[in-house]
């Protein structure tokens, strides 16, 4: 089960990089906000179609959950805006490393304390070693990006 879920996450990442490559070219032509709007509106349309035809009736609707649970997009959209501002000034490499650093620290904190209604997954020596591996990986991503931009 865990392996299946990890493979799914890896596929998700692969899709994300296809999306980034496609949107990058579109963004160059029509502007970042326009391409971001296209991404979200097409996404909303497709999800709505899927819900319309395939979603079983759920006991709880979006209108009934606590409002903070609807803030997900409010945390995701600033990422797009900040990246536009930051990439121009600090470069892709530093921006990428900074984003990943933020992602990982926060995900470890959420897992360790079980924030936002998630299960508690305590911090362990293995997790610490994983953070170290990631730091090394980030260093090489940074180095690789520097070589390509030079």
């Amino acid at each position: 089960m865990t392996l299946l879920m990890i493979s799914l996450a890896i596929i998700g990442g692969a899709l994300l990089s296809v999306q980034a490559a496609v949107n990058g070219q579109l963004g160059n032509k029509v502007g970042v906000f326009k391409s971001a709007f296209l991404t979200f509106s097409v996404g909303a349309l497709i999800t709505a179609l899927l819900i319309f035809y395939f979603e079983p009736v759920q006991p709880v609707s979006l209108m009934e959950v606590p409002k903070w649970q609807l803030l997900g997009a409010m945390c995701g959209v600033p990422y797009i805006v900040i990246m536009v501002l930051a990439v121009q000034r600090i470069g892709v490499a530093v921006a990428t490393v900074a984003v990943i650093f933020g992602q990982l620290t926060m995900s470890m904190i959420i897992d360790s304390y079980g924030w936002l209604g998630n299960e508690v997954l305590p911090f362990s020596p293995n997790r610490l070693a994983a953070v170290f591996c990631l730091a090394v990986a980030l260093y090489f991503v940074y180095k690789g990006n520097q070589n390509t931009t030079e």
Partner: protein
Amino acid sequence: MHIVLIVLTIIAGMGLSVEAGILGPLGNVVGELWATLSIFGVGAALTFLLMLFFSPRQSPSFFKQPGWQLTGGVLGPVYVIILTVTAPVIGIALTMIGILAGQIVNSLAIDHFGWLGSTSRRIDKNRVIALLFIVAALVLIGLG
């Protein structure tokens, strides 16, 4: 100035994890597709406002672009549904690292073969090493 931007960018990355953290439990309550709609619906509303007020006035129309360049939005829902399904089972950290591994492998492939109209760049040794360390991290977190 740079420090401020770097801190902002780190916060942006944290936002992505919070988004994933909110999605899992929400999906368990209202269903994965509804949780996904909450992201894209609100995202579309927000980015519409951003586009309306801040987009350059003379940017070319979507209808002047080749159709395949507009397909980025098709992949988004798949990604968000995957997040909603995996995060509650394997945790946010493992999900994020898995996604990272997929991103790096695929961006290597896209660059190497020059897919999707990108300029072809040979596989870069540094990114392969990075990938190995990310796989090691996946295994370590998977072990617990």
